């Protein structure tokens, strides 16, 4: 992949022009031109997915997961030019991560894994992670306050108290806000997943 070098102005403009509205394919195309802002966003966008494959699907110990995580993004950076279909970035990075995890398990880890993970079991979890990624994409379409409270509570596992302090909300209102936001997420999800169903109109 080319890089923009030290062209700070170009990088700044690129970063400023970026938003989460960019599709994966658009982001990949910008990365190929050496836009480092696009690269940062691409890493940010897929970091949870790669991390989850390492620690949930393959249950790698943290030191191994960190090595694989860095290896995956290093390979993405080196091999982005070989990706044939930019719209297929997500399955590509998913497969790359899967292969790196399997290699790590086969060649021996820095720490003994808690238990060996059969590949078939890992693939079941991978299927669920695909759905989880779709749900996170739907989450990104909600108002920012909903995104934040749902992410803090379910993904970051923060307590009502921590969320209340961070968002300056009374603890008593957090549960009801989470409930409202989840309902909104489900409505949005059903509209996008099942648009033809009359009950969703």
């Amino acid at each position, binding site marked *: 992949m080319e*890089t923009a070098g030290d062209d700070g102005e170009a990088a700044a403009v690129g970063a400023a022009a970026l938003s989460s509205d960019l599709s994966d394919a658009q982001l990949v195309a910008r990365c190929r031109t050496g836009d480092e802002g696009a690269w940062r966003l691409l*890493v940010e966008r897929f970091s949870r997915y790669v991390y989850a494959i390492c620690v949930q699907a393959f249950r790698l110990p943290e030191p191994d997961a960190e090595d694989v995580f860095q290896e995956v993004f290093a390979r993405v950076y080196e091999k982005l030019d070989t990706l044939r279909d930019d719209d297929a970035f997500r399955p590509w990075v998913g497969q790359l991560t899967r292969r790196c995890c399997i290699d790590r398990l086969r060649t021996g880890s820095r720490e003994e894994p808690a238990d060996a993970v059969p590949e078939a079991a890992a693939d079941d979890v991978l299927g669920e992670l695909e759905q989880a990624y779709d749900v996170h994409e739907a989450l990104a379409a909600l108002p920012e306050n909903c995104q934040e409270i749902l992410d803090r509570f379910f993904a970051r596992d923060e307590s009502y108290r921590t969320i209340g302090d961070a968002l300056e909300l009374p603890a008593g209102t957090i549960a009801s806000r989470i409930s409202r936001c989840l309902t909104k997420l*489900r409505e949005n999800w059903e509209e996008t997943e099942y648009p033809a169903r009359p009950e969703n109109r």
Partner: protein
Amino acid sequence: MSAYDIERLSRLIGMLPPAPEAWVRAAQELPGARRELETIVERAEADAAFRAALVADLESALRAEGVEPTRPLLDELRRRVAE
């Protein structure tokens, strides 16, 4: 009612927690780290003493240049200085 009831949605949100910030930052800084790596290799080619110190302690050499010594970068640097 879809299969995505509230409980299932909650569980799926929870399946993608954030990766550790330091990992994400190191991956985001990869383009700059690669440039630093090139500079280090050029210096090693021109300066035998620097090369010896580098071979002796790759991690410290990268840190001294402000680069997080991730495993892929260390492997790459090890390969390059061995050539």
